[in-house]
């Protein structure tokens, strides 16, 4: 029996290849994602191992405010004391900032989005476990305020040479630094920065640039004497530490930093795995279809096996064996492709500034395990239904001329499918609108279930459309149209399953397109409604910038006022919250704030305005005090008003933030221009003033809105690209279905050709059937996508995305595109049908 299955496999290589392709793609995504994630993890763990001492001493609170720079420091005297601790070989004070960006010789900022620009003092403190830290390996150590050393990768990328004047943009007191490059630093023991840049100054210069010139440090490393463990040293250090400081072992500090960062970028993994899942779901439709058709074609043969004494189980098993082999081959190819994909993802991230070239690809055991697991399980599960049905073929079928596959009734499919859809929609609604844990899973599972339900019901629900299409075809294309229409109606399961594969892609595309368009409309509306300023100055890479910029801007003629916006993160009742700091005096000039309660008069010092939504969710009232964990310690902010703007949940004062220990880095500046002045002229002047700082951008209201919309466009585009893969798989599904149909109907095609159908008509017949399938898929997908998209936007209404906008033009374009997809998918099968040799076709079994 297995031997027969094996033979049958080899006899159908091409057909199986198409269905394997889906497995290959899905598995490639899974494998590629895992390889990339493992590589990412390893490289960051390596970085953080290099960036801690045996024991790290830091101010309490500095660890909480990650993401926001603080003014907390370790005084020099404390560092001197640390060196005297028993078991300590030495203690070094470190100055570190994460917003010092290197401008390359091409006037572009290095690293682009995401990669931090690090500034440190040049000390030769050894990292944990005796590893040498970043050190100057070429040239010499920087001395004085006009000299800098850069890491080797940065020097290479920026195309600087020793002796060049280097441009740096700092978020410290002075925005622009132009020191001379005197040294090139590297890790003597190996190591990489993953695309981050490091600039080194001598300690005094670093202190004056980033720590207001006091003899203080960001943190301190204590190095253990030989034989002293990190833990022992930490305990010794802890004994002498004054209040307000904490000591961690290097291992713990590295772990903490690595896990924080990995958590922050874990969305990448989830994102990619979701697409792997989509590809596999779409692919499984292809497999179900392919195996159904193969079993149908082989029904005579299978019946013969039954007649010869094979048991039902044996027949099922032989079909499943084929699926196993297909899954195995597909997974192996997919794993190979996954490696390439991982390289591709790495290159993609390198272009965003995350350079992982310092770490080789990590191929952990879970990668092949997941790849083969997923590939085999999906294939076998998808092939199970056709396999089971094949065992229902009665042995007598071997003797009959026309073998009809036993089919379950469409009514049952309709019932099951509708039920699944209802459950899916309910689950999705719970995830979107109810307050449950893991909302994303509810929504994802609900959407998947709804789509599968739709697919299950579609053989029945698609009938009206197909009948309509057949009628239209008859009208327009005459008897060729009749034939095409009848063919699409002939096997509703097959047509519907093929269309469903397309549906999934289009559902998601439509949903995304509604979400993207709506989000952009919301951004526009928010800006239009609340933004009264004329000009916005911000940092192109989304980081804070030097307060000096605001001073420069307010000195420009024609500028009436400059309002700083600062962002800070702090915990409130254990949850991380995002605060916006503003200057209450100029706020009303640039932002339209409607207060639904309280007033702006008391908005000074430690006070906060909360948004209507937050107030409603948390039950906050004016006069209530909220205790935030600021770097300097718990701080009470009194609620003085509730506002209805859609942008800042917690709006506080600049004073509150700087007293709380946040560094005075501005996130953006909102400018009001003098009544008589010309905005364009003022803007040009500001651009001139910041010309040496290419990461500082000056925008008017329209450009600002465009800038805010751009990330949405980028995200949507990226998702489209990934969904494109799902569409490619679905198109292959159409090709596969039509190809198999052409083979199945060979004799019919021969007959048609014999009685006078010419090749063009033949091609048209296949194409029309293909278009009917594609448009069916598009209609189902766009319909579901509309429901999903509108529901999604309804659930986001509370999050400040108030506008729901349906991009009708896009939807029409998708529908038209599906016609093109149908025509393209039909090309090969149509050609094959047209080329069939008439005589052979008639004689075919």
């Amino acid at each position, binding site marked *: 029996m297995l031997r027969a299955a094996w033979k049958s496999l080899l006899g159908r290589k091409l057909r199986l290849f198409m269905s394997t392709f889906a497995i290959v793609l899905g598995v490639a995504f899974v494998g590629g994602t895992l390889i990339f994630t493992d590589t990412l993890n390893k490289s960051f763990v390596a970085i953080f191992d290099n960036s801690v001492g045996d024991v790290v001493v830091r101010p309490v609170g500095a660890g909480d405010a990650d993401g926001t720079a603080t003014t907390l420091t370790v005084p020099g005297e404390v560092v001197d004391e640390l060196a005297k601790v028993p078991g300590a070989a030495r203690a070094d004070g470190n100055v570190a900032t994460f917003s010092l960006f290197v401008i390359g010789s091409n006037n572009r900022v290095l690293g682009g989005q995401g990669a931090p620009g690090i500034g440190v003092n040049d000390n030769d403190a050894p990292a944990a476990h005796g590893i040498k830290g970043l050190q100057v390996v070429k040239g010499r150590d920087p001395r004085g305020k006009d000299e800098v050393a850069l890491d080797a990768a940065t020097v290479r990328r920026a195309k600087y040479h020793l002796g060049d004047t280097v441009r740096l943009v700092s978020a410290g007191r002075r925005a622009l630094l132009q020191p001379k490059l005197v040294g090139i630093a590297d890790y003597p023991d190996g190591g990489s920065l993953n695309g981050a840049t490091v600039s080194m100054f001598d300690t005094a210069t670093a202190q004056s640039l980033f720590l207001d010139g006091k003899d203080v440090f960001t943190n301190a490393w204590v190095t253990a004497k030989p034989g002293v463990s990190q833990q022992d040293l930490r305990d010794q250090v802890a004994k002498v530490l004054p209040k307000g400081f904490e000591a961690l072992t290097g291992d713990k500090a590295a772990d903490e930093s690595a896990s924080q960062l990995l958590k922050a970028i874990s969305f990448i993994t989830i994102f990619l795995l979701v697409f792997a899942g989509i590809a596999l779901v779409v692919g499984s439709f292809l497999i179900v279809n392919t195996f159904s058709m193969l079993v149908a074609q082989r029904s005579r043969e299978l019946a013969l096996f039954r007649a010869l004494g094979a048991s039902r189980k044996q027949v099922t098993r032989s079909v499943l064996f084929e699926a196993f082999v297909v899954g195995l081959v597909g997974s192996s190819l997919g794993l190979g492709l996954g490696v390439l994909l991982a390289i591709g993802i790495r290159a993609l991230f390198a272009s965003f500034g995350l350079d992982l070239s310092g770490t080789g690809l990590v191929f952990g055991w879970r990668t092949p395990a997941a790849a083969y697991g997923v590939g085999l399980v999906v294939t076998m599960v998808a092939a199970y239904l056709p396999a089971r049905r094949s065992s229902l073929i009665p042995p007598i079928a071997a003797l009959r001329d026309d073998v009809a596959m036993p089919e379950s009734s469409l009514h049952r499919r309709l019932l099951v499918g509708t039920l699944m859809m209802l459950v899916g929609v309910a689950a999705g609604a719970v995830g979107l609108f109810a307050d449950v844990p893991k909302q994303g899973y509810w929504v994802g599972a609900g959407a998947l279930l709804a789509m599968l339900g739709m697919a299950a019901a579609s053989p029945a629900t698609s009938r009206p459309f197909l009948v309509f299409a057949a009628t239209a075809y008859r009208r327009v294309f005459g008897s060729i149209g*009749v034939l095409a229409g009848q*063919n699409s109606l002939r096997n509703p399961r097959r047509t519907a399953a093929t269309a469903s594969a397309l549906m999934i892609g289009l559902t998601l595309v439509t949903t995304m397109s509604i979400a993207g368009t709506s989000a952009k409309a919301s951004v526009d509306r928010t800006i239009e409604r609340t933004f009264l300023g004329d000009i916005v100055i911000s940092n192109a890479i989304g980081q804070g910038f030097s307060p000096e910029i605001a001073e420069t801007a307010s000195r420009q003629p024609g500028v009436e006022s400059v309002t700083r916006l600062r962002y800070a993160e702090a915990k409130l009742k254990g949850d991380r919250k995002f605060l916006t700091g503003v200057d209450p005096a100029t706020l009303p000039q640039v932002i339209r704030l409607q207060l639904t309660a309280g007033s702006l008069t008391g908005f000074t010092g430690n006070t906060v305005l909360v948004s209507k939504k937050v107030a409603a969710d948390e039950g906050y009232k004016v006069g209530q005090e909220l205790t935030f964990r600021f770097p300097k310690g718990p701080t009470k902010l009194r609620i003085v008003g509730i506002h209805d703007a859609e942008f800042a949940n917690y709006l506080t004062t600049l004073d509150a933030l700087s007293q709380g220990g946040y560094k005075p880095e501005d996130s953006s500046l909102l400018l009001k221009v003098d009544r008589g002045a010309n905005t364009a002229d003022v803007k040009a002047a500001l651009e001139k003033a910041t010309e040496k700082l290419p990461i500082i951008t000056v925008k008017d209201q329209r450009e600002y809105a465009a800038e805010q919309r751009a990330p949405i466009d980028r995200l949507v585009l990226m998702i489209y690209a990934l969904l494109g893969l799902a569409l490619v798989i679905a198109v292959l599904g159409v090709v596969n279905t039509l190809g198999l149909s052409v083979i199945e109907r060979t004799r019919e095609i021969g007959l048609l050709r014999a009685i*006078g159908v*010419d*090749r063009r008509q033949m091609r048209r017949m296949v194409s029309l059937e293909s278009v009917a399938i594609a448009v069916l898929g598009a209609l189902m997908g766009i319909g579901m996508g509309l429901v999903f998209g509108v529901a999604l936007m309804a659930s986001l209404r509370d999050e400040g995305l108030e506008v729901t906008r349906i991009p009708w033009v896009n939807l029409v374009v998708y529908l038209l595109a599906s016609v093109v997809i149908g025509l393209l998918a039909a090309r090969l099968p149509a050609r094959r049908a047209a080329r069939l040799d008439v*005589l052979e076709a008639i004689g075919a079994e």
Partner: protein
Amino acid sequence: MAARVVDLTKVYGTGMAEVRALDGVTLDIGAGEFTAVMGPSGSGKSTLMHCCAALDTPTAGEVYLGDTEIGGLDDKRLTRLRRERIGFVFQSFNLIPTLTAEENILLPLSIAGRRPDREWYDTVIDTVSLRDRLRHRPNQLSGGQQQRVAVARALVSRPAIVFADEPTGNLDSRSGAEVLALLRRSVAEFGQTIVMVSHDPVAAGYTDRVVFLADGRLAGELREPTREAVLERMAAQEAGR
């Protein structure tokens, strides 16, 4: 003259595997005649018919349909020729399963974009006695009915010549007799030219003329054949080998 083949040769394969399915056959098919091509299995009957019917291209020799020599025609012209001047009845699988009997019958006309001649259509339908089956699909018809639908389809476009390859090969003797009688009638009443391939002496009894093939060559013919005469001839051929 409805069709004519001159020195027709068809060779399959090359070298050791070479099969001369037809070896210099010259034959005229008279208009308005019902001709049977007979011979043992493998003698080249189907090949001859396929070549005549523009379904296959001969290795050498000429095929004329009316005055047209089909040797030089491309696929497009051949298709048109089949569509306009030839009718087919195959042994089995004659009908498109998705179409009703009526749609099947009208298919060649509608593919060609021609309107059926109502009167002629009615005549054909009555001749094949299928009026009450027109809305049925092939799988709702018996084998004999299906073949009658196929005959109707072949007749309805008024082709110059109808080719039938063992049209009764899959039928029981009663249904077979019905189909043969139908073919006979269409020759007698409408002057239709029919070429039928068969190895059944009974079938030959319905025809005007029997042409015998053996090993790809003509092996004589009979006019106004009777079942007995054909049997006798076949026995003689067997003996002569």
